[in-house]
């Protein structure tokens, strides 16, 4: 079984991702796709007069500040436009895709954070009333029953809190939790860069392979922005039993198979 996460940044070729998925599914591969939608969420939020805001944690991780209105816009885009757009593409290619958010059937559950710590202009603050959290449990029965019935699951945040609230969770880490829960051999994380770059944004400086033992040091030295969370997700997946994580490029043809052939950054 293969778990593929495709991000939501500008430049991602979703047609190419779906072409590749269709080829793999027709060849008998069981696939679960998890997707993002950040760029489109930003655009819709701007259009609706509620511009996106991002916060930075004390360790330098950036994430979306999710108030209730932001969460509603997030759901419109992730669960609506993005999820159904991918399902439509897959159906056009003969794949019986079925789109679900992490809330549906309690697919992804975890705690909502009561407070978050952020750094603004060098000052650390506590923010409350945000709708963020992490995935702690995955409804594997639901996913495997879909797979055994011939469906290809297409999954997206938000997840569900214990109190039944929608919570914004990081898609890369949700994909890692899903790969672990399903005992997947490989997790592929696709985005709009070729992989981990030694000197961002120089794409010729791609680091082709990272040993798990070196991951923390390499992340500290070379990962910037959202790549830091991808490497955190990779670390979580690998330490919990996934054999390899490949960070690949979703901007051109055959992105999944190219990643499996070794193009990108393979972490094991």
């Amino acid at each position: 079984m293969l778990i593929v996460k495709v991000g939501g940044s500008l430049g991602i070729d979703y047609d190419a991702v779906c072409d590749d998925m269709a080829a793999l599914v027709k060849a008998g591969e069981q696939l679960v796709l998890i997707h993002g939608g950040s760029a489109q969420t930003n655009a819709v939020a701007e259009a609706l007069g509620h511009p996106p805001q991002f916060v930075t944690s004390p360790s330098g991780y950036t994430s979306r500040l999710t108030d209730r209105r932001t969460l509603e816009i997030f759901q419109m885009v992730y669960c609506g436009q993005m999820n159904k757009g991918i399902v439509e593409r897959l159906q056009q290619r003969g794949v019986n895709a079925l789109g679900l958010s992490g809330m549906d059937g309690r697919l992804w559950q975890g705690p909502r954070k009561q407070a978050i710590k952020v750094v603004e202009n060098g000052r650390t603050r506590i923010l409350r009333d945000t709708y963020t959290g992490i995935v702690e449990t995955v409804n594997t029965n639901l996913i495997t029953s879909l797979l055994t019935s011939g469906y290809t699951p297409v999954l997206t945040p938000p997840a569900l809190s214990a109190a039944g609230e929608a919570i914004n969770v990081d898609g890369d880490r949700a994909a890692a939790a899903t790969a672990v829960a399903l005992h997947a051999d490989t997790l592929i994380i696709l985005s709009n860069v070729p992989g981990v770059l030694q000197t961002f944004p120089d794409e010729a400086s791609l680091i082709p392979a990272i040993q798990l033992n070196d991951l923390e040091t390499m992340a500290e030295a070379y990962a910037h922005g959202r790549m830091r969370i991808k490497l955190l997700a990779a670390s979580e997946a690998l330490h919990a039993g996934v054999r390899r994580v490949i960070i690949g490029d979703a901007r051109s043809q055959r992105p999944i198979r190219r990643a499996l052939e070794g193009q990108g950054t393979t972490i094991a």
Partner: protein
Amino acid sequence: MTTVICVECDGELEMTDDVLVGEIVECPDCGVELEVTSVSPLTIELAPEVEEDWGE
């Protein structure tokens, strides 16, 4: 500058006038993290132990 008393060790903290609600300050005496819960009047409480925000 305004002086407040640390709720943990009773030490004195000097706070600048532009301090923000929710801001975390560290007690110079005992090192505990304190959260500014109000600026008028200026009040502080022990800061909650919270994880970093790693949402999307």
